[in-house]
């Protein structure tokens, strides 16, 4: 099955072309075609996953390449696919969520005038994402990266008659382009220094030291910029809430499985090449995002906006998890989040479909009207809130533990853990606020309430399936210490700053909270905290520059290293325990507060709101990011354009006009010269000829006698001259 992995992206591509060309004339407008191809992809992904799972090897890798473009003998661009454990999991996530979204869309988009085009777009979105997941080089991931950007543009702006949708898709595209530019720069740095683009080749080249130091950090941050754009991280997160203007299934697809996952996947994919500084950057970007987005989500009244900001926040968790060294944690959260966030979005779609409103203030009491939607939504909410037994607990806990462990090693960065923990409480609070306002209490708008009804089966079946996957036992049985996910997805060895270290996964990993490689950590404390007072910096084996500090303690070179590794494991264990207790406590507190405020009414939200009026306004307006960008970036661009327009109008046009006037003037002079000198010469010659002619013509009298007389006279003259 794995040999045929290349077929997976091709199927939706074929479906896209058929649907866009003749979809309108197909029976049922071609929705079955898209659904069938994505189902086939799902089946193949399941097959590949089972194959990978059967191997149960953390280092599993299926990698085929074939030369595609050869430039002289200097460079060959390969085309190929790479399937390893992350790819297999991602394939499953993408095709799974995509299939359910297709199924849901059949009900949700029913009767839309551009029904067939919607399914064509869904197909190309799936194609782009599957190609991205399967690509094996920076070049092809960039190609598919842009394709994802394009298809998101098409889908977000699907209802382009609405101005807000048209604006939102442009915003998403432009924000993504900004990030992609960084990605391009990173890729170009890699290409210029290493001369290759395949992941393995690049990692090898970096390991050989072809790209190192600050330039490697810049390349890593550049590539991470792509993830900032796609995964809606802090400076570029503004597009994601606006992307809610697209149809709700699209929101589910973008936010759960495809687009935003791409950024996190990219960071996971190129994980070995990040330097400690780049990791720190990544961690803080993730941290800022998760905090800001969560605070905004607290105050929003649009059901989809709340979910959008929660997505933003959860993506911040993933990115931060990856940044602090929790490789498995970040990717686990990506996977679990895909299921429960898709469930939440599709659930909100079901609610919107029922009440024809997105405003939380017009809902309430829908629990009784839409029992299936309510239960599945609740399960997904429990998952995102991190309640034990649900998938979100499994993954978020790992991230918090990784952050705590990072903080233990680098006390300067404790804020990452405490901020994330606080945000976990906020997450629980705003998600339960959403659930309570939507499903509990008395209906606020009776007219809408009376018309509400449970959605048809093709809409609630996806909800149920996704809700089932929101339980944690799918990822890790409660009875074992380490689930399959943690076994299969292990952190790759870093290649940065290390001379030729074999990629060694760490077997001692506890709860997948792999300590960042020792030298990474020490370099962080070295580079950023000058005193180097951490216990690790003191240990002799760990030093940013020492080349043999590479291995993760798997091949301990000495007793010191063994003790170090033991200490790491101990630390990880401790961190995990602390993180688990604190996150459960904080989550429970958040849920409790939500009930206190919005259900039991012990605290009046309106009074809290008015007491914290400035803060509330600040959050309600999303930290004024849009206004800030409007004033700075957009205003700056506009001012720049105006300046350039002025420059164009006055300086460039002035120069052109001046040149034109000079030309006119010179032509005038040349004209005069022509008129008077050249023509004068010609005319003068002519009139001289005429004058000469009019004088000479008198000689020609036409009288024969004259001629003869002159002839004779001439002869006489000659005779006389001869004679004398």
């Amino acid at each position, binding site marked *: 099955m794995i040999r045929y992995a290349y077929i997976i992206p091709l199927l939706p591509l074929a479906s896209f072309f058929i649907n866009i060309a003749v979809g309108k004339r197909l029976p049922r407008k071609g929705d079955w075609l898209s659904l069938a191809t994505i189902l086939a992809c799902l089946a193949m992904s399941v097959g590949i996953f089972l194959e990978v799972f059967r191997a149960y090897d953390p280092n599993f890798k299926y990698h085929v390449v074939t030369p595609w473009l050869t430039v002289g003998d200097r460079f060959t661009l390969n085309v190929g696919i790479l399937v390893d454990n992350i790819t297999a999991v991602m394939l499953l996530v993408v095709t799974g969520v995509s299939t359910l979204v297709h199924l849901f869309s059949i009900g949700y988009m029913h009767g839309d005038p551009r029904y067939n085009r919607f399914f064509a777009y869904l197909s190309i979105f799936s194609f782009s994402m599957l190609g991205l997941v399967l690509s094996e080089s920076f070049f092809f991931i960039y190609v598919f990266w842009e394709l994802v950007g394009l298809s998101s543009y098409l889908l977000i702006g699907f209802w382009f008659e609405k101005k807000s949708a048209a604006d939102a898709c442009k915003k998403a595209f432009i924000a993504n382009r900004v990030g992609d530019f960084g990605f391009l720069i990173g890729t170009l740095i890699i290409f210029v220094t290493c001369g290759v683009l395949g992941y393995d080749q690049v990692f090898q080249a970096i390991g050989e030291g072809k790209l190192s130091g600050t330039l490697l950090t810049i390349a890593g941050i550049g590539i991470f910029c792509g993830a900032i754009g796609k995964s809606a991280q802090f400076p570029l997160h503004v597009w994601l809430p606006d992307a809610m203007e697209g149809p709700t299934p699209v929101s589910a697809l973008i936010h759960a499985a495809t687009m935003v996952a791409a950024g996190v996947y990219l960071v996971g994919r190129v994980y070995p090449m990040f330097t400690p500084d780049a990791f720190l950057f990544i961690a803080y970007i993730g941290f800022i995002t998760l905090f800001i987005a969560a605070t905004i989500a607290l105050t929003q009244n649009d059901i989809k906006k709340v979910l959008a900001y929660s997505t933003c926040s959860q993506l911040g968790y993933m990115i931060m998890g990856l940044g602090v060294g929790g490789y498995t944690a970040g990717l686990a959260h990506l996977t679990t989040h895909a299921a429960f966030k898709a469930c939440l979005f599709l659930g909100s779609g079901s609610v919107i479909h029922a009440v024809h409103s997105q405003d939380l203030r017009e809902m309430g009491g829908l629990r009784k009207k839409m029992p299936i939607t309510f239960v599945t939504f609740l399960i997904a909410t429990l998952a995102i809130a991190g309640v034990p037994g649900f998938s979100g607990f499994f993954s978020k806990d790992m991230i918090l533990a990784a952050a705590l462990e990072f903080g233990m090693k680098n006390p300067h960065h404790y804020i990452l853990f405490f901020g994330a923990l606080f945000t976990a409480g906020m997450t629980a609070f705003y998600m339960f606020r959403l659930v309570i306002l939507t499903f509990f209490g008395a209906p606020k708008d009776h007219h809408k309430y009376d018309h509400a009804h449970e959605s048809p089966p093709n809409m609630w079946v996806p909800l149920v399936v996704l809700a089932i996957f929101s339980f944690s036992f799918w990822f890790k049985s409660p009875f074992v210490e380490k689930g399959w996910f943690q076994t299969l997805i292990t952190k790759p060895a870093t290649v940065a700053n290390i001379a030729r270290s074999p990629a060694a996964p760490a077997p001692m990993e506890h709860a997948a909270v792999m300590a960042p490689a020792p030298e990474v950590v020490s370099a962080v404390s070295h580079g950023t905290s000058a005193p180097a007072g951490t216990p690790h910096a003191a240990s002799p084996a760990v030093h940013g520059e020492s080349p043999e500090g590479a291995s993760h303690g798997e091949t301990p070179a000495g007793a010191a290293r063994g003790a170090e590794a033991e200490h790491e494991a101990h630390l990880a264990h401790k961190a995990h325990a602390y993180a688990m207790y604190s996150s459960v406590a904080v989550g429970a507190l958040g849920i409790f507060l939500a009930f206190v405020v919005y259900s039991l009414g012990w605290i009046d939200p309106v009074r809290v709101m008015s007491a914290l009026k400035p803060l509330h306004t600040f959050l309600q307006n999303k930290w004024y990011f849009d206004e800030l960008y409007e004033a700075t970036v957009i205003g700056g661009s506009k001012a720049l354009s105006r300046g350039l327009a002025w420059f164009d109008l006055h300086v460039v046009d002035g120069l052109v006009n001046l040149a034109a006037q000079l030309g006119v003037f010179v032509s005038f002079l040349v004209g005069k010269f022509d008129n008077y000198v050249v023509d004068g010469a010609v005319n003068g010659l002519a009139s001289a000829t005429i004058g000469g*002619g009019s004088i000479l013509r008198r000689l020609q009298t036409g*009288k*024969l006698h004259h001629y003869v007389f002159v002839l004779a006279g001439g002869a006489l003259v000659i005779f006389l001259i001869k004679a004398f």
Partner: protein
Amino acid sequence: MTLDKLLVIAAALFCCGLYTVITRRNAVAVLMGVELILNATNINFVAFSFFLHRMMGGQIFAVFVIVLAAAEAAVALAIFLRMFSTTGTVEVDAANELKG
């Protein structure tokens, strides 16, 4: 009979011909003047040939000139006929179209 007398006769004849050509208006008369001039030269040819070289070259040349004069008269008279049919006159003063 000496060469001198012959040359004088020829010169007188030449002057008569020249006078006729210059003064006469009728084209035919002009043509007659030309004949006189030609004959004056013929006399010169024959006289020089007879007195100076004792050879027949001059006489032969004179015969050529007579033939030439006949041909010339034919062509000239044809021209006059065309002229008369075009302008209605053979006055040479009327043929002034080449006047500049």
